[in-house]
């Protein structure tokens, strides 16, 4: 479903991703963990191109969504230099517009990022209506249905500033769901929450997982990772150091950095 191929990213001369590869299969729940500054958030944000890789490519459902990296293809370089025309032709045939791709990729942020100038209902309806995926009535019905599902139907007409962190994050999640995405990306969804509100957000995420949603989750909640993940990735120094199903990952880690990391956090 999502393919990350040999991605490099440098921020202010600080290498963050160093040739990272990973593949997310449909229906899979992948949890990404790693020390802070390891590049796990950047990896996630590359998947929907919120961050554009310096090198390497991102694919969504087999379609290229990032710029072409000519070094990954035969016939796109000439004498070792990028062949502009060949690249343009290749993009024409294989590249998917990023705005279209993002309609299928919901994203949930650490700081919720609900639209402050809109009510809860308007937050949920904005994108489906603006992008002409639904009529206003359809979007409203969908929004109300989602709000009822998380028990916040009474908050439809309030502004985000009146909500608690847990409520904001759950609404941010259903705002992404209102687009009927194929995959959901979670960027540390519980890190900015008060401890007592973490549970309600994780419960909603579990519900999503049970419904069979494809999910990629960057988190520090190890218990949650163990419970929900089909596969856990350990990202460190800009590469995937280890990946395994959760039982094996947590009980029998092999990479020395991972052993060290788990000792500290568990």
């Amino acid at each position, binding site marked *: 479903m999502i393919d990350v191929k040999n991605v490099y990213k440098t921020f202010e001369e600080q290498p963050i991703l160093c040739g990272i590869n990973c593949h997310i299969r449909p229906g899979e729940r992948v949890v990404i963990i790693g020390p802070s500054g390891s590049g796990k958030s950047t990896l996630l944000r590359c998947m929907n191109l919120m961050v554009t890789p310096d090198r390497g490519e991102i694919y969504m459902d087999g379609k290229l969504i990032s710029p072409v990296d000519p070094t990954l293809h035969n016939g796109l370089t000439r004498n070792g230099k990028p062949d502009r025309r060949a690249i343009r032709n290749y993009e024409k045939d294989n590249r998917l517009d990023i705005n279209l791709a993002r309609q299928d990729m919901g994203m949930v942020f650490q700081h919720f990022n609900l639209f402050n100038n809109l009510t809860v209902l308007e937050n949920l309806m904005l*994108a489906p209506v603006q992008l002409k995926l639904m009529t206003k009535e359809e979007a409203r019905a969908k929004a109300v249905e989602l709000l009822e599902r998380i028990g916040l139907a009474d908050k439809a007409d309030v502004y985000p500033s009146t909500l608690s962190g847990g409520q904001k994050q759950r609404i941010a999640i259903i705002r992404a769901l209102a687009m009927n995405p194929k995959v959901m990306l979670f960027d540390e969804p519980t890190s900015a929450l008060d401890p007592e509100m973490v549970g309600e957000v994780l419960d909603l995420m579990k519900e999503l997982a049970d419904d069979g949603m494809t999910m990629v989750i960057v988190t520090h909640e190890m218990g949650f990772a163990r419970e929900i993940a089909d596969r856990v990735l350990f990202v460190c120094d800009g590469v995937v150091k280890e990946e395994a199903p959760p039982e094996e990952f947590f009980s029998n880690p092999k990479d020395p950095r991972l052993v060290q990391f788990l000792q500290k956090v568990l």
Partner: protein
Amino acid sequence: MNAWQIFYRQLVELEGYKNILVGLQNTALIAVFGLLIGLVIGCLLAVCKIIPRNGWITKLLSAVTDVYVAVFRGTPMVVQLLLIHYVIFPALGLHIPILTEAILAFGLNSGAYVSEIMRGGILSVDAGQTEAGRALGLNYGQTMLKIVLPQAIKNVVPTLGNEFIALLKETSVVSFITVVDITKSLQNIANSTYEYIIPYIVLALIYLVLVLAVTGIIKLIERRLRASDRR
């Protein structure tokens, strides 16, 4: 007759108040529509300036904005008014009412100032708002229009109010291109009676009342816009 009687006679018996009302109307029209035009131009320029400069088009837009702001902030309003009325419009062969000319001139001028105000306003909106919009699949323009600009405008209402007050007072120079505004109408009374004290004090009071009224309106707008901040 004392000065009061002279003024009263000119105002009421000789129907000078009609001129004053026309002048008041012109002042209001120029200030309000000038600001509206300034807002539109200012928002466009601010976005041109803030858009990520990754292609030659966006670089060009940014450069054009810089030149625009430099020209309109770097020359006096009166000079711009005179240039537009006596040089630019005649050269273009345009014949439009002088009031419209004045509104355009003040709108263009105000756009330069508003663009800098709006730029600050846009930068004051959390980057997460843009990210959330883009992540949902909205394009840059939709995100700006529906999410960022409404919040930016709310943040800069007090500063925009300041700009409007400055604009309102600066309209007093439009008589340079023969538009009769509130200043000109009272000047006419003063000149025809050779009694200057009362007309000019009244003129000052009228501006003061106008500005106080505008201040009140801005406060009201601020309070309404803050509805989404209330806990």
